[in-house]
């Protein structure tokens, strides 16, 4: 974990309001899938850095996949090759690959992505490849994105779009049944996470969630990013973002 200026190698739009930014990883720190970084351009505003998951780590580069939502991500999207930004990380507890794979030979793992929740799954799928059979169920409002990136590492892909423009029409929860898998890993908006947790609970299938919260420090110091869990208020940035679904209490 460190904080430093990084140089943009490329930053391009890959779908409407979705960008992929690759920076030179000059420090080459070990990064677990599911970990994240705090990113801030050199602009004074917005004040706080923004958390983004590691989308991929390769050849001394780090890649982030992000959706432009407000001023923070707008500033990121405006960066061009050669420009610098401040990155702090890697942060948080990522996916425990050994824990996911366990003792099983090629356990069946399902990744459930809601929209930009797909971001951490490329590096996760890459890390799981050959150790597990990996399926992806991805839901989008409309046109899917970032799917091609994952094909190399994933055995099966099911897609749902809310407007029916691609794949099954409706929510992503329509395109999988947890009983078909040993582990379900989800990342996406809260209502989706809640639904996936519930489905897995009914099916008695292990479920892992990558949670979100607004952050300030990103390093566990300010207690600003807590969520309710069975173990008390835990920090998404330091105790998570990856949690066992059984721990997470949604009725907030």
């Amino acid at each position, binding site marked *: *974990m460190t904080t430093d200026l990084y140089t943009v190698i490329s930053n391009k739009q890959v779908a409407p309001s979705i960008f992929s930014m690759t920076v030179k990883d000059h420090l080459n720190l070990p990064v677990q899938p599911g970990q994240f970084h705090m990113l*801030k351009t050199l602009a004074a*505003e*917005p*004040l706080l850095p923004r958390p983004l998951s590691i989308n991929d780590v390769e050849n001394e580069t780090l890649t982030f996949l992000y959706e432009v939502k407000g001023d923070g991500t707008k500033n990121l999207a405006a960066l061009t090759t050669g420009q610098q930004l401040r990155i702090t990380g890697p942060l948080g507890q990522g996916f425990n690959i050994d824990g996911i794979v366990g003792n099983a030979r090629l356990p069946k793992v399902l990744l459930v992505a809601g929209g930009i929740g797909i971001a951490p799954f490329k590096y996760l799928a890459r890390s799981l490849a050959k150790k597990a059979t990996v399926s992806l169920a991805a839901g989008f409002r409309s046109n899917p994105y970032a799917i091609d990136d994952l094909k190399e590492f994933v055995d099966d892909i099911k897609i749902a779009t809310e407007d029916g423009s691609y794949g099954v029409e409706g929510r992503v929860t329509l395109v999988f049944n947890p009983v078909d898998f040993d582990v379900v890993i989800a990342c996406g908006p809260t209502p989706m996470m809640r639904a996936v947790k519930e489905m897995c609970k009914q099916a008695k299938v292990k479920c892992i969630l990558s949670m979100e919260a*607004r952050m300030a*420090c990103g390093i566990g110091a300010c*207690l*600003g990013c807590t969520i309710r869990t069975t173990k008390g208020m835990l920090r998404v940035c330091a105790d998570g973002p990856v949690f066992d679904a059984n721990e997470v209490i949604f009725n*907030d």
Partner: protein
Amino acid sequence: MTKESLAQVPDLSVDLCKITLKNPVIAASGTCGFGLELMHFYHPSVLGGFSTKGLTLYPRPGNHGIRLHETRAGLMNSIGLQNPGTEVFVKEILPKIRGLTNCLIANVGGSDFDDYIEAVEMVSAADVDMIELNISCPNVKCGGMAFGIRTQDAAAIVKAVRPACKKPLMVKLSPNAHDLVEVALAVQDEGADCLSLVNTFSALAIDVYTRKPVFNNVTAGLSGPAIKPIALRMTRDVAKAVQIPVVGMGGIETGIDAIEFIMAGATAVQVGTAGMVQPDILPKIIDEMAQFMASQGISNLKEIQGII
């Protein structure tokens, strides 16, 4: 380094209630946990000291709902003093962090007199260097800031706590006080050894789409660069009025900002929000202060303290 150039290295050390800080930059309560997280970026011993997350007698889960909200050049927070309680602090946390700094400030909050007294008694008996009495937290229902608003309440709580406090007592003032200078004088009279200010400003944010306040508690505390000009004015007002040392804070981001607070009369400063924006900023602030002093021929901060 030759003897001459050594002699020119500016001396950033300051005395705060008989503790010598190697420099006047202290990590502010609630923004640096218990100091351990800082170690990822620098060793806390490079700082003048650090102040722990606010401790209360009993463990507190803190507030529900959104706890952070950004504003123009500011941060609103409503953490609600989430902490493991003084007992866990003394038994489990303190041994791990004692070695990190020679100015370990335990920030203590409460909701009634008895809680405050018992918490201060327990923590000040342990191996901490100073107690920072938080009478200014705007984010807990009963108590906290309530004590920091009216002069008589502030005086009463300090009077009650003083005999229980076995260490130097720093009282952290609220910018929401009705008459800040009057509070400062009263707190001094009741035996505070030094003062720190400002805590966060009571502020409001509204989500116009849900037509609800952003925070469950309606209001929350504003910190960060936005408040600096007001915090600096308050620091000067208080430093001019009292005889005890003042630790200034509110929006400090650079060494120059810190120098402004010293010129306004502060003996030392605390840095909160800026350290969350950039986790290695505190050592940079110290460097910038040293550079400024060197460039301006200032060998000791006393030369400029309170010059305004």
